[in-house]
């Protein structure tokens, strides 16, 4: 047994059997680590995340989460997930959305209210919990999606572009919470195409066209390419390919 929460070994994935979307991806996630998947739109970040969750099959390679080969339905209950698009029920209030997902995760009724209050507080939605989601702005919907992912305080969080459409102040607040979770020995996978997010991660995987063009800690990467920012790392690494 390893102490990896997530272990991705040599995976390859293609949707149509002809055009490969992911090629030869390897990734390890330790407890208390924040891993960032960085890449432009269309690079394959969401696909990789869905493969890790077992929602997409892989053509080649092996994925384990909590030492369990994926896909596995029960493991999904231990992952806090936020999809790239806001998957919310507009007709319901924010609270009803949270209760619904809490029930799907089999959170005990007695704990659910406390958890909802806490998650709402983190994303600053406490006062808007009883509004229907149809009245929410884009940023509020993103925050509610984050709250749903945080709901059952899972050991593993997988967040697909959580900072898109969120103002800088709130982005800071969310990062604070992620750091807080990390200090509680929880692990996080986050996808992003924003360089500011990348700087905050413990470990980065740079993806372009389905290839992991480079991976390592931010400082390792900067050292390796002899540059000062992750943005430059990305550009240099891209040139190499």
């Amino acid at each position, binding site marked *: 047994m390893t102490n990896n929460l997530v272990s991705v070994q040599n995976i390859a994935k293609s949707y149509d059997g002809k055009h490969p979307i992911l090629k030869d991806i390897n990734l390890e996630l330790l407890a208390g680590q924040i891993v960032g998947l960085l890449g432009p739109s269309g690079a394959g970040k969401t696909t990789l995340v869905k493969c890790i*969750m*077992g*929602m*997409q*099959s892989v053509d080649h390679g092996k994925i384990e989460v909590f030492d369990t080969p994926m*896909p*596995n*339905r*029960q493991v*999904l*209950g231990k*992952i806090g*997930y936020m*999809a790239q*698009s*806001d*998957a*919310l*029920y507009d*007709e*319901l209030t924010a609270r*009803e959305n949270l209760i*619904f*997902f809490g*029930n*799907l*995760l*089999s959170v005990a009724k007695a704990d659910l209210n406390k958890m909802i209050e806490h998650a709402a507080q983190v994303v600053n939605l406490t006062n808007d919990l009883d509004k*229907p989601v149809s009245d929410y702005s884009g940023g509020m919907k993103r925050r509610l999606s984050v709250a749903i992912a945080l709901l059952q305080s899972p050991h593993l969080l997988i967040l697909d572009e959580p900072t898109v459409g969120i103002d800088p102040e709130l982005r800071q607040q969310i990062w604070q919470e992620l750091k807080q979770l990390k200090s509680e020995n929880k692990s996080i996978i986050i996808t992003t195409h924003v360089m500011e997010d990348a700087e905050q991660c413990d470990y980065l995987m740079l993806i372009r066209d389905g290839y992991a063009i480079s991976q390592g800690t931010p400082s390792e990467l900067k050292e390796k390419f002899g540059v000062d920012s992750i943005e430059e790392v990305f550009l240099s690494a891209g040139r190499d390919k």
Partner: protein
Amino acid sequence: MRLIALIKRVLTQMRRSPRTIGLMFIAPLFILSLMYVLLANNNTVNSYVGTYNLNHQIAENLETKHLKLSSTNSDRHIQKQMKDHNWIAFIDMSDRKNVEVTYQNSDLGKTQLVKNGLKASIMKLKSKDLVSNLKVSGQALKAQKQAILTQQKALKELAAHLPAPARAKMSKPTNKPKVTGKIVTPTDYKITSHYIYAGANATFFDQALPALVTFFVFFFVFLISGISLLSERTSGTLSRLLATPIRRSEIIFGYIIGYGIFAIIQTLLIVCFTVFVLNVHIVGNFWLVFLTNVLVAFVALTMGIFASTFAQNEFQMMQFIPLLVIPQVFFSGIIPLAGMAQWLQWIAHIMPMYYAGNTMINVITKGYLLSDVWLNLVILAAFGILFTLLNILGMRRFRQV
């Protein structure tokens, strides 16, 4: 727990979308009412019927507020006479026992009016004859009873004067009393019908309504369940749902039960409306009609969900309506199957509406019982179960486990 959460959510969503509720509950009633007004209520205008040598008792019974008779002295050039006088039918009784009717038949409702009226008047006449016959035989019976009584009395008197063995030998009375009065043979009028337009089978409203009621149940449930699951998919919530430990089958069952509750309310509403507001007479059992439609709703629900997996957006879902839904109405019994080409008859048998429509027609208009239609109901249930299984399998596309 997860299943209940899903059902609760579906119900809350439905309650909060008044348009969907309107489409499900108000629209079918509106269309049914419209059809009722358009197809059935056209008999308030006076219609005229030409007659030749019509039995005066039949004529008396036939004439109503909206149906006027005018007799003519010729049974020739009927079609021309009808055209000239704008008669909707011509009743010819030149031969006293045969009623020969020619219907204009461009308006099925009016043809039906005369047809039913004529049938009823002849029945009335027949039953009158029968009643008078009954009276006659009643008198005869009375006379017979009287005769027996008299005889018995005489015998008793006689027996009292006889020795015992002779008394034992005495047999029952054998002589028959004479029947008085005359029995009339009721005239068996034979009706022959001719149609100027279309044929005898065109009893449109009678046949169409039961089938159309069930078709509306099918149509609206199909539409709403299909579009709901589709928007669940396009909005990404389905994928989000599948990122929780929910079972694929739980999603399908949650949908079937959640929308099924609304479909059952809708079905009850439509059937009650048809019976109590539109006053459509159900010869068979009301609950059998209801049961049939609940099964239809089940099939529509599962078919709608199934179809939605092949659509990318609402418009593509609408494209299934002319493809999958409308054709079914033609096989639901509105058009008699017997007249169709063989291959069309085969197609009919793979359409749920064929079984539903025929069951509805047979129960509503002919009073068929559960024991007569159970096979159709089983087939409908089988369609529903088949699509349920296909839907659960189809969920594999979105998540492997």
